[in-house]
């Protein structure tokens, strides 16, 4: 776990007294940390479930909204393919698979992080961040994972359903290794979305109304579901090496659909996720140093 400006280590030590004796050393200390954070996270889940269940119809309506927008993306692609056979080397069902994959990644991101990222600017504006800073846990952890969006898991499963259907249309039977690789790369993609959006959300420490900026990120999801071969020049460079939107879903789907000619894009995606994480952690620390709370 990362430590930030407030130096939580001393507080952790005071909580820490029973299990970590001097002799057992780092390992038990590490497992203690992990189990402690897991139990905190379990409590956050319980809260989220309770919250969602108190607005049941709203919960179902949001699922419907997401389904509609998902359908909208698909209808756009089917209109495009009324007028062409290929976009680059991408055939219709491969692009459908790409849309499924990108929707899956987006929904998993949404399930864990989206609400928390968009809420950050409100926490700063109202000064409610104070309460989270006082808790004896890593602040980035609690800010990033406070709420879980359960409906997004339902939508993620509809994306999986679509991908399976597209794979059958393509007569594609991916190996277990391919599926596992795909899932691992999806995790990387989710991490990239999270790091970039969290970085954007950190801007709210500088300008109070950052919500517009955060929602602006939503537009980038639109690029992630487009076949990479359509793009050239500066646009492609920016969205590969600066904001790697053209990698996050294209690479995993290429792996699954036997469309990878070399392993280079996979390594690039992994490298970019590390870069994104470092930059966002740096941005977060720089932002926290600026925080002066509200009104007081």
């Amino acid at each position, binding site marked *: 776990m990362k430590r930030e400006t407030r130096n939580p280590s001393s507080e952790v030590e005071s909580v820490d007294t029973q299990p970590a004796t001097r002799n057992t050393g780092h390992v038990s200390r590490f497992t203690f940390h992990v189990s402690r954070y897991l139990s905190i996270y379990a409590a956050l889940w319980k809260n989220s479930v309770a919250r969602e269940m108190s607005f049941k119809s709203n919960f179902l309506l949001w699922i419907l*909204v997401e389904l*509609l927008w998902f359908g909208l993306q698909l209808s756009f692609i089917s209109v495009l393919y009324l007028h*062409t*056979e290929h976009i680059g080397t991408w055939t219709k069902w491969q692009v459908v698979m790409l849309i499924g994959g990108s929707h899956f990644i987006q929904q998993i991101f949404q399930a864990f992080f989206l609400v928390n990222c968009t809420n950050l600017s409100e926490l700063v504006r109202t000064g409610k961040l104070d309460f989270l800073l006082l808790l004896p846990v890593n602040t980035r952890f609690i800010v990033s994972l406070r709420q879980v969006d359960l409906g997004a898991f339902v939508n993620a499963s509809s994306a999986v359903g679509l991908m399976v259907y597209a794979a059958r249309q393509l007569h594609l039977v991916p190996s277990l290794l391919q599926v596992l690789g795909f899932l691992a790369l999806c995790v990387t993609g989710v991490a990239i979305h999270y790091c970039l959006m969290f970085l954007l959300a950190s801007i709210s420490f500088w300008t109070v109304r950052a919500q517009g900026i955060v929602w602006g990120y939503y537009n980038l999801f639109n690029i992630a579901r487009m076949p990479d071969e359509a793009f050239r020049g500066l646009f492609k460079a920016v969205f590969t090496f600066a904001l790697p939107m053209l990698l996050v879903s294209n690479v995993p789907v290429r792996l699954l659909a036997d469309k990878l000619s070399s392993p280079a894009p996979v390594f690039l995606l992994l490298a970019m996720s590390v870069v994104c994480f470092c930059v966002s952690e740096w941005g977060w620390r720089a932002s926290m140093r600026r925080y002066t709370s509200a009104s007081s």
Partner: protein
Amino acid sequence: MSDTLIAKRSAMKKYWHVLNIGIQNNLTYRLNFLARAVFGLIPLVAILYVWQKIYSGNGPGSTVGTYSLAQMISYYLLTTVVDALTAVNEDDWQIAADIKDGNISQFLLKPIDYLWYRLCLFLSGRVTYLAVAATPLAIFILYLHQYFVLPPNWTAFGAFLISTALTALLQFFMSYTMAMLAFWVLEVSTFIFILFAFEYLASGHLFPLDILPHGLEQALFLTPFPYQLYFPVSIYMGKAAGMDLIRGLLIQGLWVIAAYGLARFAWRRGIKHYSAVGG
């Protein structure tokens, strides 16, 4: 001067003030507007790249429906301009919040009509948005200037302006009516997003409607959605002329009147239901 004229002038002045305050208020969020304008261009550019790839794959000089690549690009440029002029920004959310938080109580007491008040704020929002978005939009259009066609004649241009104004009104009245749902339900955003999804697809945001199979296109024209974006653009591009143009403008006008009537009706019903929570 007769009394009615004085009353009219003071009413005009009242709403003029609202417009002014709205602009000043909106200017505080200019960075938000700028971010929205710039970020909004990114998916547009992406769509243009995809079309370019499709055209180059189909061979040189190919067309999609009746569109050459240049016409396709200018279609998207025009939708961006019309959208900047007419799209409802956060008005529906704000109206719903006003109802939910009981802020509308004060309008029931003041000699000011809430619908006109919101319309002024909507217009001020558009003015501010244009002022902020003009720069990135102009740079973008200049970059693609060879695709930016002029309308075929002055009549088309005039009709385009009229139709764009009607589009703005239609957008606003429909959003206003949707926001009225806040009288009955706690969370209106889902309903707003559902309507928005249909608008997005059926108004021609994603692709020109006349590349759809003919029957589908005809069916869409039975709904108000094409008149929320596609129709003014098609006038500008010279696709609607003569009798088609006149008939289209009439239908658009009827939709505006219908949406206005519905907005008034929903408000009246809502007020009866209203209990001024926290007011």
